Structure formats: C-alpha cells, structure tokens
C-alpha cells in the first residue's frame, strides 16, 4: 500500500503538491484570514464607538467635577422654592397672606380647589379680598410677580360707594411640578444652564421667596413626594 502511494506520488507529484498546497492555502484563507479581517472591520466600529463614548464620558465627568455642590444646592433650593415638587398648601396660604398684608388688602376668605389648570400641575386658590382699589391692584401685581410661580386667572371686582373700598374675588392658579422620576442613564447628556436660566436664578435670588417660610429641600432625595399632597382627600 505504502509503495503504491509512493509510486502514485512520484508519478503525479507535479499535480499532488500544488493541490495540497492550494488546499492548505484555502484553509488558511477560510479559517484565519477572512475571520480575522471581518473581526478587524467590526472591531474598528466598536473601537470608534467606544472612543466616542470614552470622550463623551470624560467630558461629562470633568463638567460634573467642575460644578460647585454648594452653589448647585443653592440654585436647586431657589428653583424648588419657586416651583415646588408638590402642592405644599401650607406655604402658599402663608405666602398669599403675606402678599395681602404687604399690599394692605384684607383677605376675607381663601379657598383651595385641588387639581385645576393644565395637566393637573396647578391648583386654584379662590380669594375674596376687601380693601382700597390700590391695595387690591397692588396685591394682584404682587401675586403675578411672586417668585413662587402663580398667575391670576379670574378677577371680579365690585366697588362700594360708601367708603371707596372695593371687594375683589379672584382665582389664582398656583403651579408645581413633581420631581423627575428617573435621573437618566450615564450616557445622557448633562443639561447646561443657559444665560436665560442664570437670569431667572438671579431674579429668584433677588426676590423674597427664599425666606424661611419657603425653604426648599437641600438634596435631590428630599425632593421625592412626602405623603399625601392633599390631606383632605
């Protein structure tokens, strides 16, 4: 058998040798070269994506480390005071009473109607006020300018001929916004404060909203809802 193979090889070696080499080459191409080149091409896109991600995360981490935690905390407090995470009826009653007292108007009644306004993110406060016309006008203006976000919706003023005082009924829409439920993935872009945002913060800081009665939670964890928004429900 061996001698027959030897004889066959010596007779046809000119064909057998290149055939064997060709098969070996084909195997090298199919098993090594093609998979490696395919892997390399795929790897290049992975490398490019990972490089982009690394650059993005590096920039984000650097931006985060540049943020002064105390300054941010102050700004968050201002924003949360202006637009609380829940209805916070207590503070709004105090604030409206203070605005009324500052304007010289006498608040006769104050009724809170839950869940009025757009997307249920506001509630209505119905006020009955008595006072001089200037006082009532001043109160309306102060409510509109209040750093706690609220707007006068309906106004009904009747004047008395006896003492020049007016009686006013008006509805104030008070806004709030729940805290975001998710804080986003690591790959989420960091929000940037624009000059307009800084101006709003400066306006809020210059106003009287940051008085003790309206102090805001100091950390993001404290922004989560605290029990029932409406104790009467």
């Amino acid at each position, binding site marked *: 058998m061996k001698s027959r193979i030897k004889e066959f090889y010596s007779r046809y070696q000119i064909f057998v040798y*290149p055939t064997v080499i060709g098969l070996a080459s084909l195997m090298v191409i199919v098993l090594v070269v093609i998979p490696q080149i395919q892997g390399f091409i795929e790897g290049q896109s992975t490398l490019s994506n990972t490089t982009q991600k690394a650059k993005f995360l590096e920039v984000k981490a650097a931006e985060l480390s540049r943020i002064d935690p105390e300054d941010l905390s102050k700004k968050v407090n201002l924003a949360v005071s202006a637009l609380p995470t829940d209805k916070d009826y207590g503070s709004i009653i105090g604030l409206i009473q203070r605005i009324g007292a500052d304007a010289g108007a006498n608040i006769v009644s104050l009724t809170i109607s839950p869940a009025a306004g757009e997307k249920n993110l506001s509630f209505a406060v119905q006020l009955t006020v008595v006072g001089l016309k200037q006082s009532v006008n001043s109160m309306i203006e102060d409510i509109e300018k209040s750093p706690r976000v609220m707007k006068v919706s309906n106004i009904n003023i009747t004047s008395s001929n006896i003492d020049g005082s007016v009686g006013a009924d008006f509805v104030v829409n008070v806004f709030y916004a729940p805290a975001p439920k998710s804080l986003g993935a690591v790959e989420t872009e960091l929000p940037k404060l624009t000059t307009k945002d800084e101006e709003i913060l400066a306006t809020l800081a210059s106003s009287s909203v940051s008085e003790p009665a309206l102090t805001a939670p100091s950390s993001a964890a404290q922004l989560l809802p605290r029990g029932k928004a409406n104790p009467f429900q």
Partner: protein
Amino acid sequence: MNTISINLLPVDSAQKQKRQRKFRLVQLVSTGILLVLIFLASGAVSLRILQTQNIKKIQNQVEASESSIVSQKDKESGLLVLKSRLDIISKYIGKVSKQVSNYNFISEKTTASINVSSISVDSTGTILISVLATNGQVIDNFIESLLSEEAAAIFSKVEIESLSRGRDASYRASIKLVSK
C-alpha cells in the same frame, strides 16, 4: 571547426531530469504562495490582537469615567431637577398673565371722573365692566378710549351691553371687551 556533441544520457534519464526541474519550479511557487498567505494571516491576527488591546484600554477609560460620574450622581440629579424646573419657570416668570394685563389696561383708562361699579375678567381675558358717570361726555370719552388702536391690539370686540341715564342724571354703561 565543427564540433560534434553526443548526448550519451539515456532518454529516460533526460526526461526525468526535465520533470524534476518542472516540479521544483511548481514546488517553489506553491510554497511561496503558502508562505505569503501565512504571513498575511499572522499579520491579520497581530492587528486583531492590537485592536483588542486598544478596545480594552478604552473600555477601562470608559469604566473609570462611568464610576466618576456615578460618584457624582447627586450633582447630576440636582442639575436635572434644576434644569427641568427652570424650563417651566421661564414660561411664567417675568410675564404678566393676559387677564392681569387686560385688567391693568382698563384700570388705566378709567379716569377719576368715572366711577367703576364692577369689573370682571374671565380666564380668557374678556372683561365686563360697569361704569357710572355724571356726565355723558365722560362716558363718550371712555368708550372712545376703548376703541383706540392701543385697545384694538388687545381686544377683538367691544360691545356696549347697556347704556342708560338714571333719574339722578347719571349715566350707567355696561361694556364687554372680548380679548384677542
């Protein structure tokens, strides 16, 4: 001088030598191709190894950045809360509502000689005003002021719902101003 060359080798041996030469050539070319392929394959494998090392290195950087971001999650969440709140606040702060703006406009137009009995502003900004004046000219002037270009920019319609003269010679008017 002519030379005579005689090949004394047997014909078989000469043919065998020719076949061997041909085979060696084929062997050389085939082996060369195989070696080139092996070189290419080893090159591709080396590139892949280098690439994998690079990817691992960058992935380590990503992990380091991620852990740095996670450790500063408080700042990120604070910033998100701040930005979302500021976006909403910007819609309202420094802006007077339509109702109050319309109310202020009508308040400016009511002079001392006009006695306002009542003003009501609804949620659309539409105003219903009842006024009283001792002089018909005053009422005229007031109505004219409500028909000015300035008023036309705010109100789409001015309706005089009622106009009467009382026994006491005072004029009473009830006017509806429909907001734009």
